[in-house]
């Protein structure tokens, strides 16, 4: 079942095209990371999905409700972490959460139970009676996340969820997201933290100048934009002429005194054949392993291609 379906969503502010025919679908219980440079249209997309901004054209449904026809129902199904935490600094955390619980029409006992449990989960239970003005930046961010989760929404739209957090707090948040994902909650996360996005997201969407320029699972995007898996072979001793000796088996991309790197379209066939050849040449192999590809590599390549720069010549596919 698709929890978020976006079709050709467009937003124009006066003469500025902020979001240009964005289409996405996010299945129940999955995480989509929306990446892109500042001003790419991430926040505007999230605001349209929260029915804060109306689309100029296109449609979307969230949890089965239409963002144009049923805005109140959509907002009831969504927990939002906004770009700025926007807390009321004169209130205590307990009052703040009680206020939002009332807004979401939670019963008094439920409000208190949910607030206490979430505050505990994020390590804030000791700060319940503290005024929010006294909270640190990271605590404020965590409280804003608690607010977004307070009404137990099936969909969470999180704008930079771990920004301003220390590593421990950021891990707490990531763990919470993974846990909630297991509980069939659906996430749309916008972030500049590519490691985090790679770790959490089932689907990556890269948006630039309002357009989605890449969309898919990380592995698909890596294959499409960075190429086939890159393998590295390291030998015990320096060698001469190995590149030439294996050129009929693999296309070597780079090499050193005791290593070569090559693209393996079919590692199950190529790697054993290569190992046999190297052994036959009397060279001892220390390791043969894939060079890890990161989302950063993918992202930079996608953006580079979209900028119209020459495509990566090393890309095979």
């Amino acid at each position, binding site marked *: 079942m698709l929890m978020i379906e976006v079709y050709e969503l467009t937003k124009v502010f006066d003469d500025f095209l902020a979001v240009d025919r964005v289409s996405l679908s996010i299945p129940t219980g999955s995480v989509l990371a929306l990446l892109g440079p500042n001003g790419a249209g991430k926040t505007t997309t999230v605001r349209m999905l929260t029915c804060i901004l109306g689309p100029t054209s296109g449609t979307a449904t969230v949890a089965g409700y239409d963002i144009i026809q049923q805005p109140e129902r959509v907002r*009831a199904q969504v927990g*939002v972490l*906004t770009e700025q935490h926007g*807390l009321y600094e*004169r209130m205590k955390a307990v009052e703040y959460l009680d206020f939002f619980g009332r807004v979401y029409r939670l019963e008094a006992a439920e409000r208190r139970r949910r607030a206490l449990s979430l505050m505990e989960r994020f390590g804030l239970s000791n700060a319940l009676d503290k005024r929010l003005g006294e909270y640190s930046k990271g605590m404020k961010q965590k409280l804003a996340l608690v607010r977004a989760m307070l009404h137990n929404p099936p969909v969470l739209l999180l704008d930079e969820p771990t920004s301003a957090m220390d590593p421990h707090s950021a891990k707490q948040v990531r763990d919470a997201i993974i846990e909630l994902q297991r509980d069939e909650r659906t996430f749309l996360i916008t972030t500049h933290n590519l490691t985090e996005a790679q770790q959490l997201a089932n689907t990556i969407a890269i948006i630039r100048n309002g357009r989605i320029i890449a969309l898919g699972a990380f592995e698909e995007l890596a294959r499409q934009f960075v190429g086939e898996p890159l393998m590295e072979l390291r030998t015990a001793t320096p060698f001469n002429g190995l590149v030439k000796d294996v050129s009929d088996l693999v296309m070597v991309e780079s090499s050193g005194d005791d290593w070569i790197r090559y693209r393996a379209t079919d590692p199950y066939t190529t790697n054993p054949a290569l190992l046999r050849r190297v052994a036959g040449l009397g060279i001892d192999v220390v390791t043969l392993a894939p060079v890890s590809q990161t989302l950063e590599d993918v992202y930079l390549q996608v953006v580079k291609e979209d900028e119209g720069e020459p495509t990566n010549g090393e890309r095979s596919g």
Partner: protein
Amino acid sequence: MASAAVKAVKTETIQSGAGAQFRWTLSNALIITRREVRDSFRDWRIIAPIVILTFLFPFLAQFVAGQFVSYVTGFGAELIGERTIPFLLMVVGFFPISISLVIALETFVGEKERRSLEPLLSTPLTNTELYIGKTLSAMIPPLLSSFGGMAVYMGSLIFGELAWRPQPMLVIQIVALTTVQALVMVTGAVVVSSQTTSTRAANLLASFIIIPMTLLIQGESAVMFLAPDAESPTGIGALWAIIVGMVVVVTLLLRVGNSIFNREELLGRTIDQLNLKGMARRIWRHVWTVETTGKPARSLMEWYRGGVFASLGRIKMAAWITVGVFVLALAAGFVLGQRPEWRLTLVATGSLSETATNLSQYTNISTQLGGFRFILWQNARVLLAATLLAMFSFGVAALVLTPAVYVVLGYLLSQVLLAGVNPAFMFAGVLTHGVVEIPVIVIATATALYLGAVVTKPPKGMTVGQAWMAALGDTIRIGIGVVLPGLVLAAAIEAYITPRVVLLTLGGG
């Protein structure tokens, strides 16, 4: 699992029945109000003036009243003393409500500035619930202070040395005035807040509220001192008129506020800077665009068909309202002329030959050219003034300024008929050019009304700003395409043809 999660969130925001819907809206609004009021009472900058104005200032006012009464009584001017006491009651009531403006600006634009509005906008609350909640929260603390201050002041005067016995209706009037003034300031502040992103800019723009309110208070003070019916048990008539006028203003401001207080407007605007060039470009494009194609018109005919007629279609309702007001104005003038105290002493049986002789001098070309210029300029500036004033009065000024001439016409017609004179010359003098001029004036007035009123209910899918710019584009289109050519033609007929037709009906020429 997912559907269970979806069900976990309450979504029954739609209540059946108008009563239930209203209760639901109000109860949601009060959630906001409670939080905001509590927050206001935590701010010493708000609490301190409220306490001072509620508990200290009334005693000062009472002391001043006592001293002033004794002083003026010494000179035999008891009346001034008597009128000062209710005047000070109004002042005691007004000072605290001036805080409502500060709270409203803080509540709306302050939240925008601190970015705490977006989480609230992401909740299921409707725009109306948010608007009502915030409006009430800006009004309740200052109004409580105001009513408290007035109670303290009256108590000290009633039970004090002066043993003041106020007219109950006057007290009711002052309380009503205070309440509507608070509403005007708060609803005005919402409009101001929506146009800014910083408290500083909002405070600067707030002078658009403060200055008219100050003038109003001065007017009310003058009324309270000078009104001949100041002691009337039904209250001061002029104050009732002010209250009714303020209620109309509040109603219009509430409508504008409710239109403006929407998520799109609140978050869509990111800068306070005016992009005049961009605005001019957009308006200009709207003026020359053919609506069906969205492209600039290639010929005059295409522009009229696809642009001007589309604009005329949008002002249809305003045109019917204008026609209705013009007819009423004509009828009012006629009825007024029937009242004995308004009748003119016309020579009932006298000949109009002298008039004909005077008129004949206006039938030579040189005076006619001057007449043409004068008529064109006169009509154009009245319509221009009506349009400009309509922008700042939700269109009301257009319906006040232009119909005035129809009141005069109705009045003159009644006088002519009462004098037993054949009104044919009058019809000739009005209708010859009126055939063109009256429809043009109706269209121009309706366009001004539409331009002013569009902010109270923007067309669906448009923000207030977009709607107003589009309406301004329509106004320019109609102005260039219909009103200006119409006025030129009407002035030409009035200068060159109308005098001759009138002469004919008078037997001259």
